[in-house]
């Protein structure tokens, strides 16, 4: 049995997945830690925690693929791949019928069109001037003075969402304050915010061709309010796995196993991908 791991160093959280290959690929364990101020430490902790959860010594892990924004800093990763490739591969692993991935992370929103074997056919990421990202929601929650995990449920209680014109954080904050001053209900404001991002994400996804099945990945997928808002504007259901926020790490682990499999000869693995390069 061959064992490999994927580590996804995100802007706010770092995720690690340990995966085994014998016959089929199976996830042995997952781990999640806050990224915080020390990225390398976070990556190591997540990796070790995952090994611990899998009840195996770290030395049993034959190959580690790093992804996410911190990937160039992971000293122990054998190779690095972008989270775009990893989310596509992860979504394909969890739901092989996936043809479109909508990923909403802390720093970026992405739409990826995925081929039948999980490869990236096309992808787009949020415009500079309209980052409908996880942080946008977090900031909105800040202004409302409520916790990030509350906003989803709150927004679902809404009966008439307010109209939010922009997905520019600076503007939306003053919009929210104005609506508060007008005595609008918190749920209606949050619902408006969710809808605004959903619409923005839809027009992002339209740039690649939206084919079923659509799988949503990334931390924001844990926000049921956001999922429902997206499904509303898409007019269709999405695949949302409980592992949605691990998708990058899962994809990285799958790549790691494939790398160990000698029959897969890709030149993706070249020195400049190795740890620390790119700086």
């Amino acid at each position, binding site marked *: 049995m061959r064992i490999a791991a994927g580590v996804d160093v995100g802007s706010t959280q770092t995720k690690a997945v340990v995966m085994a290959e014998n016959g089929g690929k199976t996830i042995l364990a997952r781990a999640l830690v806050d990224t915080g101020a020390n990225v390398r430490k976070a990556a190591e902790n997540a990796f070790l925690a995952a090994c611990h959860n899998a009840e195996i010594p770290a030395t049993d892990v034959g190959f580690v693929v790093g992804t996410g924004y911190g990937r160039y800093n992971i000293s122990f990763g054998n190779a690095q791949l972008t989270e775009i490739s990893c989310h596509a591969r992860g979504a394909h692993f969890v739901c092989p019928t996936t043809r479109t991935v909508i990923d909403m992370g802390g720093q970026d929103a992405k739409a990826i069109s995925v081929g039948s074997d999980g490869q990236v056919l096309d992808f787009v990421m949020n*415009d*500079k001037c309209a980052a409908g990202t996880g942080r946008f929601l977090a900031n909105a929650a800040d202004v409302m003075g409520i916790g990030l995990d509350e906003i989803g449920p709150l927004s679902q209680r809404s009966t008439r969402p307010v109209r939010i*014109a922009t997905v520019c954080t600076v503007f939306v904050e*003053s*919009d929210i*304050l104005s609506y508060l001053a007008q005595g609008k209900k918190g749920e209606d404001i949050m619902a408006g915010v969710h809808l605004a991002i959903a*619409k*923005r994400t839809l027009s*992002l996804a*339209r740039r690649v061709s939206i084919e079923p099945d659509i799988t949503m990945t990334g931390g924001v997928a844990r926000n049921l309010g956001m999922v429902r808002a997206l499904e509303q504007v898409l007019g269709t259901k999405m695949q949302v796995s409980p592992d949605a926020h691990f998708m990058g790490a899962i994809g990285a682990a799958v790549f790691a196993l494939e790398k160990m499999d000698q029959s897969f000869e890709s030149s993706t693995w070249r020195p400049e991908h190795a740890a620390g390069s790119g700086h």
Partner: protein
Amino acid sequence: MLTFERTFEQCQELIADLSFERVHRWKEQHPGARVIGYFPVYAPVEIIHAAGMLPVGLNGGGDRLDIQYADARFGSFICSIIKTTLEMGLRDHLKVFDGILFSSICDSARNLCFVMKRNFPDLYIDFLHLPHNPSSTASVDFLASEYHRLIKELERIGGKPVTEAGLQQAIALYSCNRQLIRSLYTFRAQKPHLLRAWESYVLIRAGHFMPVEEHNSLLEESLKQLSQRSGKPRDSIRVVVEGAFCEQPPLDLIKLVEDAGCYVVDDDFVIGQSWFVEDVPVGGDPVFALADSYVNRAVYSSVRHDFRAPRWEGLAEKVKRSKANAVLFLIAKFCEPAYFDYVLFKKKLEELSVPHLLLEFEEKQFTFDRVRTEVETFVESLVFD
């Protein structure tokens, strides 16, 4: 005859109607006749009218249209009107049109013309090059030939032959229309407490969607009604609004400016649909007369270049004429022509020590507290001491 206030409501509904109901009705009443949209200023409406077609002003989708597709075609840092105009097309709002006319306004608008050509191959979409070098003797001849090119195109797509008589008649009708608009502006400059900016705005914008003959009678009736209006002056400062010649601000924003203590005594909303400072001369070659009027007698704006009569002098003149205390720059987000002109306008106004305030707007805006605070502060800075 319904009350005067109802007229404003009707105009407001007309402007807000993205299904162009009124235009559809005109088409039913005129079987086989064509409708030409224009985007959105300095279009040779006389020529379109003379071809037996209805010219319709296209001014974006305002705050009533959610962008679903256009964002994918025009990315960041592009103004709203570009996106909502394309969106209207992609969402089948423009079915009533047989053609759309673009002209030299800005790079984004020009590119939009050709993007629409690709996306709507069945529509007649054309770009008119308006001269940027009025001091050259060649400019009028060139524009005349450009107008003749347009005439051929309109005849090709089923317009009736454009005759000299037809053109003369159209010129007369539109000169009348512009006279009426000028008297509306004069009235407001003299009695701003009797005619609010948003009211004159909707009266004029309504002309986008109806034959000029009907708009003329609407304006005549309104002017009659106005003369009987009464009201008591408010304690407000007189401002000129400059910068919203293309993309239009939300109506609530225009209202806000006045509620916050300003009389808008002059503005350049869609350049008042005026185009020219004086009537197009009658007699002689009408096409040449139109070209000559654009090159030598057009209303200044940030999308027209005439270095013989700089735009900042035009603004200074406007301030003097309307006895304004200050200038409010109302500039659409990402509107490059307006933002460039702001620098030289500002320079001129500061030489004349005329106070000014810059406000940025977007078609879609639902809360106005930021803007309100700025306008109020501006007013306070002029009234308190």
